[in-house]
């Protein structure tokens, strides 16, 4: 019965390899993000961007480059199943590097329950990400809206002068996720 045993061994090894390859797919999710981050390929996510300190903002604002004008466009989408009304009040704005600009996004909770939402930004072109400074942004906090309540959500930003010359249009996209705690959404 030596033969029987070795069949089992091959079956087990083969099975383990198959299961590992299945798992490999899911392992690719963090790996892929990591590779993209490390190599700078294909990153649009600006989720990690930090709040710009007022002192930095003031320094940036000292000399405004009037010779350049950058178009900044805003878009807003709801993630799958998110029922809020969500859109930018300003679709597009022209900005000189160094200048502070305030825009608003409108959000309304049309449902009959209190909800919490989190907006996740993404930006193209990707070279602009490190030159786009948010001084205030609704995306830094979760937004809580009571049933039927609406809000103008502010975004205050600056673009620095080191933005690559060829970049003339920046698109900032926000996606709104339902972040209502589980018990509340169930109730």
């Amino acid at each position, binding site marked *: 019965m030596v033969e029987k045993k*070795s069949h089992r061994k091959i079956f087990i090894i083969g099975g383990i390899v198959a*299961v590992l*390859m*299945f798992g490999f*797919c899911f392992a690719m999710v963090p790996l892929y993000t990591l590779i993209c981050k490390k190599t700078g390929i294909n990153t649009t996510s600006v989720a990690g961007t930090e709040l710009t300190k007022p002192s930095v903002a003031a320094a940036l604002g000292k000399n405004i480059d009037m010779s350049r004008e950058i178009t900044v466009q805003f878009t807003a989408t709801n993630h*799958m199943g998110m029922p809020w009304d969500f859109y930018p009040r300003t679709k597009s704005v022209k900005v000189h590097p160094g200048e502070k600009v305030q825009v608003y996004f409108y959000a309304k909770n049309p449902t009959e329950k209190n909800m919490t939402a989190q907006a996740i930004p993404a930006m193209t072109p990707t070279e602009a990400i490190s030159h786009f400074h948010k001084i205030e942004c609704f995306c830094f906090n979760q937004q809580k809206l009571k049933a039927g309540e609406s809000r103008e959500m502010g975004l205050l930003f600056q673009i620095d002068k080191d933005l690559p010359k060829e970049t003339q249009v920046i698109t900032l996209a926000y996606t709104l996720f339902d972040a209502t705690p589980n018990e509340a959404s169930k109730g």
Partner: protein
Amino acid sequence: MTTHEHHQAHGHAHDHEHESPPHHSMKNGFVAWAKGWLFTTNHKDIGTLYLILSLIMLFYGGAMALLIRLQLFQPGARFFDPNFYNELVTVHGLVMVFGVIMPAFVGLANWMIPMMIGAPDMALPRLNNWSFWILPFAFALLTISLFVPGSGPNFGWTLYAPLSSTYGPPSTDYLIVAIHLMGISSVLGAINIIATITNLRAPGMTWMKMPLFVWTWFITAFLLIGAMPVLAGVVTMILFDRHFGTSFFNAAGGGDPVMYQHLFWFFGHPEVYIMILPAFGIVSEVIPTFARKKLFGYEFMVGAVAAIAFLSYIVWGHHMFTAGMAVGTQLYFMYATMLIAVPTGVKVFNWVATMWRGSLTFETPMLFAIAFVVLFTIGGFSGLMLAIVPADYQYQDTYFVVAHFHYVLVAGALLSIFCAVYYWLPKWTGRYYNETLGKWHFWLTVIAINITFFPMHFLGLTGMPRRITDYAVQYTEFNMMATIGAFILGFAQFIFLYNVLATMLGKGKKADARVWEASHGLEWTLESPAPYHSFSTPPKFGEIKTEADDKFEHVQP
């Protein structure tokens, strides 16, 4: 335990070898017949079941192909609406890949591998039964998906996200489960083949004395184990995206649809070699027989197959050159892809060298094998063209790609399957097929393949996109040609169907054990038809002589 299983388990089936099992005729009633086929663990029975499934699927997928060509006969999309066209394209691709080519190769493996290595059966016979019987359910699900309200799957066989996730019709879920079933079946089948080849070779058959068909299947089995679970994983992620609110492939949720393409093609590229390596094996068996020579460069043939299999895992990016990729990455994938031409070239030259100065005869299997070498090489060359990044920007998603993969899959894999069926049919049934009909089938098929797919190269180069239901008028002539060719190709297969069925049902000249003059290998030491239980005691591998061995030196021991 059925009777034949009983015999097999005890290995004393010798007295019963000539007795056909109860389910091979209806004499014992329908229930015995159905139960026999449903519960059979005999590798020959299961091989037959796989091959029959594959034959049915060939006509099923072929009918869809003809509907596609009908729609494209003239511009104007006059026969059906674009969505139904998209469903046809999707299901045609899936049926042909998972329903025709793969089961046919697995069927051949089931029939031939135990006979070629001198084993009594597959290593894990019950698993083998299960691997097969999963498949009819998978294809039933796939077919049901066409009739689910709100459109059948309509995003192409690649199931690209977000077409299949965010925008996928409800039937996508049926398709995903069908793919899971096919994946389980293939992986179990592959494990079984590895176990059989590793453990059950006849004494004296060392690794480097295995027939090439066995070698190619051994390597293919590793590709299956590595690649199919990735497909299962990626479609599972689609399922999660569709129903459980995850965002694996949804950019708005932090995912990335391009990652779907990476994962899919990480499966997809090994998959194309899964569909061609066994073909290499078949041709490497057939050409020496009819050239009456030993295969030229056996060791290099084995090495080339292993090299191709390894390279197939590291070139997936060439399917995605235009999806957005850094220049360095594109260069890497381009060079790695072109590297595959080297081992493939070794194989093609070795087949030609095998025929060189051989005493060739042109029976139907040999004709198919030669056509395979010529037409597969054309498909290989167009593949090389597609590998060149700047050129690929022109060819991507045009009919040039369609022409390329039909040359390797129809003129390559499918012809090799016909070749194998004609070559081994006398061994399976004990009778020769009708040679005249075989030749008719061959010539009609080969001419029709070229009428159908050759014009597609030109269509692609002038910019006709693939997967489009309608086209601009300047493409009309070539499309008409392709449609006419496709119908000849489709109807020529009825000759094959008739020829095979007639031989199975007892028409045709009786064959002796050797079948072909210069046949070589263990399977030809068994009488024709091969007894239901063969090699219950392992054969002596070294004692087999063939005419080819006598005529030429440096032969098998």
